[in-house]
């Protein structure tokens, strides 16, 4: 796979980097003000989706916020994963969920990097040894360890991955301004970048490197430069995700529960819609009903 050697090299280099960074976590430097509710940024030419009342560059929220979701992302997928992606879109065109089945139908977490989309505002809590990114909406919370630890050797698969970071004071003013983060798997999956099912590799071995910092000119704009190293890509894919700070210094955090509002029913890998009367309905044309062989009167 195209990125495999690169991923290995990054792992080795990053391990060394983390060892060097140990002393920096306890030097008494001040931390940046990342308090508040961080909302998904959208470009000036964003369009309003009347269906859900949100602005995006096109479609639903995307990984690269400057481009429309799905094909519009122009993700550097390998031919094999471009085919998987096109199959996902084709399935969705027929009423299915494609590669987004688990998240859309079963309310499973999207994990990295979908959890950086900020469907609901992110809260970032900076402490000396760990920075927490609280995502809500059944996505796991991110713990970015900045205590100088090394990579554990017994990692089990997770949706969020395991994140180690280090603070940088790049302008040497005594205040940290950049949080560098590396996130490794093994991940749980399958995962997708957005709701079209734009896929990450099913080997779940992605690596993410991020630089998170406030915009120098706009302190209420947070950048998260993410580079994805994934074996479904022909090259590393970098985007500059942005978040805007809610101007309310004491924002009201809203609750969002996928399960509570979920009208979809998953039976095996088939999805059905449950209407307000509790009746099961098909989601695509000519969809067969569930297998009723064990319901004797109805199986004939």
């Amino acid at each position: 796979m195209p990125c495999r050697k690169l991923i290995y090299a990054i792992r080795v280099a990053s391990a060394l980097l983390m060892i060097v960074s140990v002393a920096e976590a306890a030097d008494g430097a001040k931390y940046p003000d990342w308090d508040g509710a961080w909302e998904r940024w959208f470009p000036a030419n964003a369009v309003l989706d009347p269906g859900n009342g949100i602005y995006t560059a096109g479609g639903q929220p995307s990984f690269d916020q400057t481009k429309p979701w799905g094909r519009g992302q122009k993700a550097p997928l390998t031919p094999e994963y471009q085919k998987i992606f096109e199959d996902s879109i084709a399935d969705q065109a027929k009423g299915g969920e494609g590669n987004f089945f688990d998240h859309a139908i079963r309310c499973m977490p999207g994990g990295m990097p979908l959890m950086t989309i900020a469907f609901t505002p992110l809260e970032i809590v900076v402490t000396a040894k760990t920075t927490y990114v609280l995502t809500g909406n059944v996505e796991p919370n991110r713990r970015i360890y900045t205590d100088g630890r090394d990579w554990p050797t017994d990692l089990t698969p997770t949706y969020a991955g395991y994140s180690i970071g280090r603070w940088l004071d790049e302008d040497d003013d005594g205040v940290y301004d950049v949080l560098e983060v590396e996130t490794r798997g093994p991940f749980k999956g399958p995962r997708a970048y957005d709701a079209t099912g734009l896929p990450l590799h099913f080997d779940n071995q992605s690596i993410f490197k991020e630089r998170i910092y406030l915009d120098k000119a706009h302190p209420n704009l947070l950048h998260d430069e993410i580079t994805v190293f994934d074996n479904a890509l022909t090259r590393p894919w970098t985007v500059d995700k942005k978040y805007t700070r809610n101007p309310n210094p004491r924002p009201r955090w809203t609750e969002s529960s996928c399960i509570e509002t979920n009208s979809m029913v998953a039976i095996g890998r088939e999805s059905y819609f449950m209407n307000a009367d509790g009746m099961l309905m098909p989601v695509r044309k000519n969809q067969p009903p569930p297998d009723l062989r064990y319901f004797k009167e109805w199986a004939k």
Partner: protein
Amino acid sequence: MNLRPQFLLAMTLAGAVATPALAQTAAPSVGLSSSTEQSTASIPDFSGLWLHPGLGFGPPLSGPGPVRNKTRLPSGASDFRLVVGDYTNPILKPEAAEVVKKFGEISLSGRIFPDPDNMCLQNPVPYIFWNFNVQLLQQPDKVTLIYPHDSDFRVVRLNQPHPATVIPSLHGDSVGHYEGDTLVIDTVGVKLGPYRMIDRFGTPYTQALHVIERYRLLDYEATKEALERAEKEWPRIGAIDPNYRGKGLQLEFTVEDPGVFTMPWSATITYGRNANQSWDERVCAENVEHDYQYNYFSEKDAHLPTANKPDF
């Protein structure tokens, strides 16, 4: 089909052992020095990962206590595998007692009734306190409480009043302040969710629910004593670090709801340090069970029972 709730309960119990104990030792949150009404020096440090080892609410420090489990183990402690609420508890109004009684009858019939936990819904306050693990992130103007159940969290605004009009939510509107060594949290506006209950026994609540939490650190000996006292009510499931000799954390909470209760009552939950080394993801929708080492597996690995033909 009753299997799914059983798996979820199993996962819940496994969570007690499988979860937390982060390396974040007693280090106060960054920036704790500004805008608090209480001076930084006197603000207690609640950082780190806390674990309480029992499934339910512990006994009150004094006065009326919560609904207790009628089914007991030979040791006299609650049988967490069969939750049947004591509907004769004088705190319950007759209508509420009837609700608790009916849920208990479902349990006794061998079925498991749906609750916010096994239905993978957000948990209302104080139901959410069942989470074996909790982490308190203290900041100058707020405290964020993190729970493992679907990575849930609550945000408590410090030194602020409730808004004149509260928008109901399952976590309610929580405001807090420090009183000496104690963090006091006041919660109102808890939404009436699809399974509106404040405990494992199905004790209901109304929109008048008012919960006051008081968190404070206990010395090691006091923690040990409180844990032993709690263990007489709920057997120890979670793995507390046996080598930890530092302070513990105690939550004492008071519940008022004139729509359900005849009087205010209180309960305690005492936390020690978790014996494990990481905060695991707990994804309710995965519908997993645990293995004998209390590890989680994704669905494809779960030991789901199978049948080639129906039982009837």
